[in-house]
C-alpha cells in the first residue's frame, strides 16, 4: 500500500524501460537488450514470490518449480511441433496464443495441487515441504528423457508465433515481455490494495484471528499461492521463449533461493522492491566480477559468489528493508 505514494517514481521507471532499447541502440550496446529482457522476465517471478513471502508471510522455497512448469509447457509444445508428433493424441504447436495460456493454466494447476497439500502445514514445515515439491518437479523434469533429461532441450523452431508481432525480433520480444510485466505488476498492485489484499496482510500478522471473524485463511492462502504460481509460470514461459532453451536447471532449488534473495535485496512486502532487487541482482551478476577484477582481485572475479554471500548475510542481518528502504526511507 505504501507503493501508491510513488506514482512519479513508477512512471519514471516505466518510461525508462520503454525507452531502454532506443538508448541501448543509440549507444551501440544493443547486446544488453537481452539482459534487459531477462530483468523484466525475472522481475515477474520475483514480484509473484513477494506476494507469498512479503504480503502473506508464506516462505515458499519451491517457487522455481512453477517457472519450470511454464517453461516446459512452451518447450514441449514446440518440441512436438518440430518433430511433428503428438502427445497423448494432441499435436504440438508454436502458436503463442495456445502455448502461453496453456502454460499459465498448467502452472495454476500445479500450484493448486502443491498449495492444497503444503498449506496444510505452517512455518518451517511449509518451507521444507515447498522445497521438497520443488525437488520433486526438478526430478520429474530430469526424468523426461524424451525432452532431453538432465541436459534440457533446444527449441529448434525458435520462439512462439503470434499474429502481428514477430517475437524472434529481440526488440519486439522485449516489448512483449515488458507488456506482460506491466500487466502483472498492475494486477498485483490492484490485488494487494483490494479487500483480499487486506486479508493477506491479516494472515501475515495472525492467521488464527481470521477464523474467529469468519474468514477462511486456508482458502485465501490457496488463492494467493495459485496466483503467485501463475506469475512464476508466466515468467517461465517467457524465459523459455527468450533463451529458446528449456532445462531442469530452471527449477533447481538454488533458483528458488535466488528468487528469495532478489525479494530480500529489493525489499519484501512491496511490489517495487522485488523489481529493484532483480535489477540489483543482475547488475551484481554482470558487474561484480568486473569490479573485483578492477580491484586487482582476479581470483575472486570468477568466484564472485564468495563475496556475494557475505554481502547477502549483512543485508539479511542489518538491512532488512533492502534497496527499497534505501530509496524510500520511512518517515518516523
Amino acid at each position: 500500500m505504501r507503493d501508491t505514494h510513488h506514482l512519479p517514481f513508477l512512471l519514471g521507471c516505466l518510461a525508462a524501460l520503454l525507452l531502454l532499447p532506443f538508448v541501448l541502440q543509440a549507444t551501440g550496446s544493443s547486446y544488453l537488450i537481452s539482459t534487459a529482457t531477462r530483468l523484466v522476465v525475472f522481475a515477474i517471478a520475483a514480484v509473484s514470490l513477494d506476494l507469498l513471502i512479503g504480503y502473506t508471510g508464506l516462505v515458499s522455497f519451491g517457487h522455481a518449480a512453477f517457472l519450470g512448469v511454464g517453461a516446459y509447457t512452451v518447450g514441449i509444445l514446440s518440441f512436438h511441433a518440430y518433430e511433428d508428433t503428438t502427445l497423448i493424441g494432441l499435436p504440438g504447436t508454436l502458436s503463442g496464443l495456445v502455448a502461453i495460456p496453456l502454460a499459465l493454466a498448467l502452472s495454476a494447476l500445479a500450484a493448486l495441487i502443491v498449495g492444497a497439500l503444503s498449506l496444510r502445514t505452517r512455518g518451517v514445515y511449509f518451507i521444507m515441504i515447498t522445497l521438497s515439491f520443488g525437488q520433486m518437479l526438478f526430478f520429474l523434469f530430469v526424468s523426461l528423457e524424451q525432452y532431453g533429461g538432465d541436459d534440457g532441450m533446444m527449441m529448434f523452431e525458435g520462439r512462439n508465433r503470434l499474429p502481428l508481432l514477430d517475437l524472434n525480433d529481440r526488440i519486439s520480444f522485449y516489448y512483449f515481455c515488458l507488456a506482460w510485466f506491466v500487466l502483472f505488476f498492475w494486477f498485483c498492485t490492484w490485488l494487494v490494495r483490494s479487500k483480499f489484499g487486506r486479508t493477506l496482510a491479516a494472515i501475515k500478522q495472525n492467521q488464527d484471528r481470521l477464523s474467529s471473524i469468519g474468514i477462511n485463511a486456508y482458502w485465501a492462502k490457496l488463492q494467493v499461492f495459485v496466483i503467485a504460481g501463475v506469475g512464476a509460470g508466466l515468467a517461465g514461459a517467457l524465459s523459455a521463449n527468450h533463451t529458446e532453451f528449456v532445462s531442469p536447471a530452471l527449477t533447481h532449488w538454488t533458483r528458488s533461493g535466488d528468487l528469495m534473495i532478489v525479494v530480500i535485496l529489493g525489499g519484501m512486502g512491496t511490489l517495487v522492491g522485488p523489481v529493484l532487487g532483480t535489477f540489483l541482482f543482475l547488475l551484481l551478476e554482470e558487474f561484480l566480477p568486473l569490479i573485483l577484477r578492477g580491484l586487482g582481485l582476479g581470483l575472486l572475479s570468477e568466484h564472485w559468489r564468495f563475496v556475494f554471500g557475505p554481502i547477502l548475510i549483512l543485508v539479511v542481518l542489518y538491512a532488512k528493508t533492502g534497496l527499497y528502504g534505501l530509496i524510500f526511507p520511512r518517515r518516523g
Partner: protein
Amino acid sequence: MSQLFLEQLLNGVQLGMFLFLVSAGLTLVFGFMNIINLAHGSLFMIGAYAMALIGGVTGSFLLALVLSLPVVACAAWVIEVVIIRRLHERDHLDQVLATFALILFINEGTTMLFGRVPLFMDVPASLSGTVTLPGGVTYPLYRVAIIGAGLAVALALWLIIARTRVGMQIRAGTTNRETVEQLGVNIDRLNTLIFVVGAMFAGLAGALAGPLTSVEVGMGENLLILCFVCVVIGGIGSVRGAMLGAITVGVVDTMGRAFVPDILGRFLDPATASGISAGLSSMSIYLLMVVVLVFRPTGLFPVARSV
C-alpha cells in the same frame, strides 16, 4: 531375488544411517534453537573434504577420521559464533536466507581452494573385505561398519538425551527455552554445544561417505534436502523421529531405484517403463512425505512446544 532384496534393504539402511547422522543435528538445532540451518549440509561436505585431504596426506584412514572431526567442530563453532547466534530472534525467512548465503560462501570458497575436480578416496584395507551374513548374503564390510557406527551414535545420543543432566536441559529447552534460562542454565553455551555436536555428526557422516562417493562441492546440499524430508516425516525436533524418517527414506529411496523398473516392466513396454520408473523412483520419497503430511501435518513424532 531374495538375496538381492536383502542386499538392497541393507543398502537402504546404510543410506538411512548417513541421513540420520545429518538429520540428527538438523532436528536438534531446530528443536532446541528454533533455527533452520540450510548450511548444515556444508558441514557434511567439510567433513568429507577434511577426511579426503588428511587421508591423502597421512595415508591413514583412522587418523584422518579422528582429525577431521575437530576440523568440522571448529568450522561449526565459527559459524555459530559469527552468524547463527544472531539469528535466534529472527524469523525463519532470515534464517533461510542467511544460511543460504553461507552455502554460497562455503561452496565457492571450497571451489577456490580445491577446484571443481572431485576427490576420491579408497576404503581402508582393514575394512575392504566382505562379510557373509546369516542367510548367505555377502555384504561389504565397510558398509556394515557404517551401519554399526550409525547405530552407535544413535544409542549414545539417546543415552545422553534421556539419561544425563545436559540431556534433560536439552529436552526442557526444546519445550520451553525461556523457563530453562530463568532457572539458571547458560543457554548460549548449550546452544553452541548442540550446534557443534550436531555439526560433528554431519561431519562424521561426510567423512565416512568419502570412500563411497566422490567428494565434491554441492554434495552436502543434495543430502540436506533428503534430510529435510526425513526430519519432516519424523517430526521436527524429535531425534527418534529423525531416526525413523531416515531409515524410511533410505529404504524407500534405495528400494524404489532397485525394484520399480522391474515391477513396472511387467506391465508396460520397456522404453516407457524405464522412463517412468526413473522419474517415479527419484520422486518416491517426496511422495512419501506428502502422504505423511496429509495425514500428520506435524510429522510422526511431533515435539510438544510451548511458545
